[in-house]
């Protein structure tokens, strides 16, 4: 949906996308730009979170868009276009990681140990972080860094669920795992990120901020 078209409820947006897809498959390629425009940023964000490198992420996002164009006729309208698109990007990112790491020892991304209880670290004083904190480049970098420090299997699930807002069922489909695995990995991802970020979130960042804006408790 182009900016400035006014509020559109999502069913209308899906109809709108379906019509755009029809036009693209009928040979009117220019409609494709409009179709992908709302998802460009999301594709890059997902690719960046998975590949941890800007240049690779940009190339991966571009490649995913080209593939989506190439295979648009294979898109089935019973699934959501956004989910289909993100699935292509995830597959593309996975392929690249395989290539990157084919000669290196990479930690094995298995579910072993996931079933056991993860004990979150103890932080006594926790503050709610106002979302304005995100205006600061340094905070966004800290968040990206923390995300890059959790294992790939957790990162994939977290990126789809909490950044791309994909449903549990669609995340399971996109990654080829069960919904139970989605939930377990998501739990672990969120706990690990909370532990990685807690020292900053609970203390330093909000204290800095409190000088200017006051901190929500």
């Amino acid at each position, binding site marked *: *949906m182009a900016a400035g*078209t*006014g*509020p*559109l*409820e*999502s*069913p*209308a*947006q*899906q109809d*709108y996308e379906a019509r755009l897809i029809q036009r693209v498959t009928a040979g*009117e*390629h*220019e*409609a494709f*730009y*409009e179709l992908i425009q*709302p*998802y*460009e*940023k999301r594709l*890059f*964000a997902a690719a960046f979170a998975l590949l941890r490198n800007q240049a690779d992420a*940009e190339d991966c*996002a*571009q490649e995913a*868009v*080209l593939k989506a*164009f190439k295979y648009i006729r294979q898109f089935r309208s019973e699934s959501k276009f*956004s989910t289909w698109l993100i699935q292509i990007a995830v597959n593309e990112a996975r392929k690249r990681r395989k290539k990157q790491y084919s000669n290196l020892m990479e930690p094995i991304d298995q579910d072993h140990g996931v079933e056991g*209880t*993860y*004990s*979150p670290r*103890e*932080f*006594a004083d*926790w503050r709610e972080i106002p*979302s304005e*904190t*995100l205006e600061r480049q340094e905070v*966004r970098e800290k*968040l*990206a860094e923390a995300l890059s420090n959790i294992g790939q299997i957790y990162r994939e699930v977290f990126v789809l669920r*909490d*950044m791309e*807002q994909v*449903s*549990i069922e*669609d995340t399971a489909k996109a990654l080829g795992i069960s919904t139970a695995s989605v*939930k377990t990995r*998501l739990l672990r991802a*969120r*706990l690990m*990120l*909370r532990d990685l*970020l*807690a020292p900053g*979130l609970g203390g330093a960042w909000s204290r800095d901020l409190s000088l200017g804006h006051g901190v929500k408790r």
Partner: protein
Amino acid sequence: MIISCEQMWREVSDYLDGEVDPELRAAIEEHVKGCQRCTAVLDGMRNVIQLYGDERMMEVPVGFSRRLHQRLEADMSHSRRTFLGWMVAAAASLAVAGAIEVARSSVSSRPNLRSEHSRSSNRVPPDMMVIVADDGKTFHVAGCPFIHDKTRLRTIPAHQAEQEGYAPCVRCMKKYLDAA
């Protein structure tokens, strides 16, 4: 039902996604009241979901969109690109304008969701993390196909969404609406 800290740590993520049954939900809420450590875990996880779900985390490098379109254009030029094709495109852009008008009128004919909000508060678990669009009227679970314009989304607790005047989505929040 009484739960331990360990159980709480296993369920906290599903709890925030609204994926636990009412009995477990009540047990978690009871446990958190008396446990500082678990309160910190819950608040911390809620913060994580909220921060990463914010649109501001979606930064792209300068010129990203332009380079993407250039590459796409080069790719498409291998495909069919005739004068007729351009004519069709021009005609279709008029059709797009028409489609937007149709979509707009269907929105304006909808009942006012804000008025429904006054009847529907207190039914959705207040701590559940939900998705709102800045210029939307309703809040949703992640992945709901009825999420409004996907370009400006935030992830916030349900009670905050209700405070900000959002009403529960009648589709994805149906179970809470029916339960009342």
